[in-house]
């Protein structure tokens, strides 16, 4: 290969990664208005799905032209009923006889949001440093396996036991993500590919551990499930036995505070963001880019690992199986996008998704709306978030100029000029 060819090759690779970076930057710098608009559009899209799948509407629409009012009544009752059930399952139970019962759904939403906050932060830290961490599933599974094993197999007093188990989970998650970080930093292997592959490795590894007597499998059983966690390792309920909300939620809030400090106040976080904005400039400024890449993945993996270990010590303490990640590793990507990769934004996005999850159960049970509808709404949110110009066009929000950083001001100036 001649020199010119090599340099052309280099330029092409650099162009490619620039394009990725640019796209990522645009996506994460979407404004609050876009997030809100995306949610509104997604809810409207969800309504359409509810309408077309509702048997009552289908029946009434068969004679639409003879009596249209029936169709509209059916549409109203199906959509209204579905979102009413969602609200009742996620925020406030109107049917409850006491205040304590009425706020139960809200605490359930927060419980569901807890792992999403943690994993969302993990993905967001990666985004800010220009890294796509798609490996949440694998990181959660190995963290659950490590923390879970300590949780049921080792005897220690509370709270030491719980803290050691949490720490073990975070370390396992960090190591799992760290592998991808090292491969990216020192061999250039794209982290999207390596983290996805590590999902498979983690999944089959944990499946094997669960199916092998003497490892994770509960003694006396041949089902792929671990034993119950020991009481000394379980995260205690915050509001008493009646509610599922557990100590993990406090950990999640601490993680939000920590990530906010890390990204906005620490020099490490500055290095993360500098590498995310422009690795070439960061290198010139004296930042060790490969080392930063590895540390980013370690922090991200530890946060996702915290989510994994919270699942087994807080949410499902009766023993876990290989789908304990519950798709949170992937939902976390959505949460990070919706939250604009900012800690506080991630927290609110996670609570919104937690509410969808908590409400989804009641929506199914009370109204017979398939759980897939809730997932469609979530998927539509991502779709609209990924297309900010579309959302801006629909809601007539100002379209930013080509430079996303000063987008708003530039747009406003343009308007004034016009």
């Amino acid at each position, binding site marked *: 290969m001649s020199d010119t060819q090599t340099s052309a090759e280099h330029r092409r690779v650099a162009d490619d990664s620039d394009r990725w970076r640019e796209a990522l930057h645009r996506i994460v710098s979407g404004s609050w208005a876009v997030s809100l608009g995306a949610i509104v559009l997604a809810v409207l899209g969800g309504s359409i799905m509810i309408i*077309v799948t509702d048997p009552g509407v289908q029946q009434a629409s068969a004679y639409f032209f003879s009596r249209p009012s029936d169709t509209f009544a059916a549409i109203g009752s199906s959509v209204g009923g579905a979102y009413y059930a969602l609200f009742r399952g996620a925020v406030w139970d109107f049917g409850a006889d006491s205040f304590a019962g009425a706020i139960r759904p809200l605490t359930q939403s927060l419980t569901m949001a807890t792992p999403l906050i943690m994993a969302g932060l993990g993905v967001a830290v990666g985004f800010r440093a220009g890294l796509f961490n798609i490996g949440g599933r694998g990181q959660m599974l190995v963290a659950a396996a490590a923390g879970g094993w300590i949780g049921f197999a080792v005897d220690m007093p509370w709270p030491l036991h719980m803290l050691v188990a949490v720490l073990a989970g975070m370390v396992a998650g960090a190591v799992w993500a760290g592998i991808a970080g090292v491969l990216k930093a020192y061999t250039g292997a794209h982290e999207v590919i390596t983290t996805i592959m590590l999902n498979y490795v983690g999944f089959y590894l944990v*499946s094997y551990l669960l199916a092998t007597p003497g490892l994770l499998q509960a003694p006396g059983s041949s*089902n792929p499930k671990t034993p119950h966690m020991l009481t000394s390792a379980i995260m205690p309920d915050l509001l008493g036995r009646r509610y599922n909300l557990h100590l993990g939620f406090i950990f999640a809030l601490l993680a939000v505070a920590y990530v906010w400090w890390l990204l906005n106040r620490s020099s490490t976080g500055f290095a993360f963001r500098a590498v995310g904005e422009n690795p070439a400039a960061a290198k010139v400024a004296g930042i060790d880019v490969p080392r930063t890449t590895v540390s980013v993945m370690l922090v991200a993996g530890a946060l996702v690992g915290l989510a994994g270990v919270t699942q087994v010590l807080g949410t*499902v303490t*009766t023993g876990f199986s290989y789908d304990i990640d519950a*798709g949170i590793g992937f939902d976390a990507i959505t949460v990070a996008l919706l939250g604009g990769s900012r800690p506080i934004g991630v927290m609110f996005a996670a609570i919104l998704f937690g509410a969808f999850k*908590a409400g989804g159960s009641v929506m*199914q*049970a009370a109204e017979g709306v398939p759980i897939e509808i809730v997932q469609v709404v979530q998927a539509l949110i991502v779709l609209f978030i990924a297309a900010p110009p579309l959302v801006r066009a629909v809601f007539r929000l100002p379209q930013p100029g080509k430079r996303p950083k000063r987008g708003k001001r530039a747009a406003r100036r343009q308007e004034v000029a016009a």
Partner: protein
Amino acid sequence: MKTAMRGVALAAATALALAACASAPEESPSSSSTDSAGASETSTAKATDYTACIVSDAGGFDDKSFNQLSYEGTKKAAQELGATFKEAQSDSETDFQPNLEAMVSVGCDTIVSVGFALSAATVESALANPDLQYVLVDDAADNDFNGEKDAPNIKPLLYDTAQAAFLAGYLSAGYSKAGKVGTFGGQPYPTVTIFMDGFKQGVDYYNKVKGTDVKVVGWDGKDGSFTGGFEANDTAKATANNIIGQGVDVLLPVGGPIYQSARDAIADSGKDIALIGVDADVYNTDPSVQSLLLTSIMKNMDVSCYDTIMAAGQGNFDPTAYVGTLSNDGVGIAPLHDYKDKVDPALMDEVNKLKQDIIDGTVKVTSYLNQ
């Protein structure tokens, strides 16, 4: 699969909207109620305030296996009782507890949970709600392994499928010209291996009685071939190919839809290999394998769920564990259908006699349920 169904629903709705020129029905109390749309007997609707509910495991109600069969049985019973029917599908194990809690909050009287995965969550919910009735399909609800169920208000539904698989094994051994029959499973769960183990015992019994040496490929009594999951994917097909490559002419794939991969592998091999279905009579549930199907090992979860809910709806809920066997028709083998001419009637007579012997206890079939 689910997305595809939504797509179909969308298309159907569009078609309905386009053809929305039909005349409106006469105003009557039943036509305005949307929730009676699925009930066959509107006259008996709301005749009772009993509510039957079902929660699936991560397989979903369209798994063509235990979730689906339990769902069908429960729904049918609820409709015949004129009872309210509620369903919740779980996507992962973190959904079990919230789904069960949602069922409690919407006023269910009997909650059916499908699969061993829901065992711990069901026990927890049952202990917290001692007035409600719980039915747990495919698990003994014994998570501390002391030999007793952990909550008094749970009725476990268990199936000794080894007995039916024994008959299928005997039949296959008699049918096989190659002297080799094969099996493989999704994952080495007790509810999967019980089929493979019963099948092997049946083949061994045939060898003992006839003095033959028919071999079982894919299960040696302790360990065997597994695809690692319950999806009809390339791994499942490769596993099937591997077993076919060892010269078998009867194949028993155990685990949800993985028989579809076996079907494709058989088609690719171009050999004359008979397939054995599991759970339902696959001849009826999947026409695409009719010509390949020797028989099916049936686990009549629809019947036992139906019976349980019918009894519960009439106030006769009996929480003692149900074990499906050949004698109570909880398990069984399906008719030969297209293979009727290919199987020696004398062999079928032997199988029928064997069934009676197992019921009488003269032939012993071992499984984890009767150790």
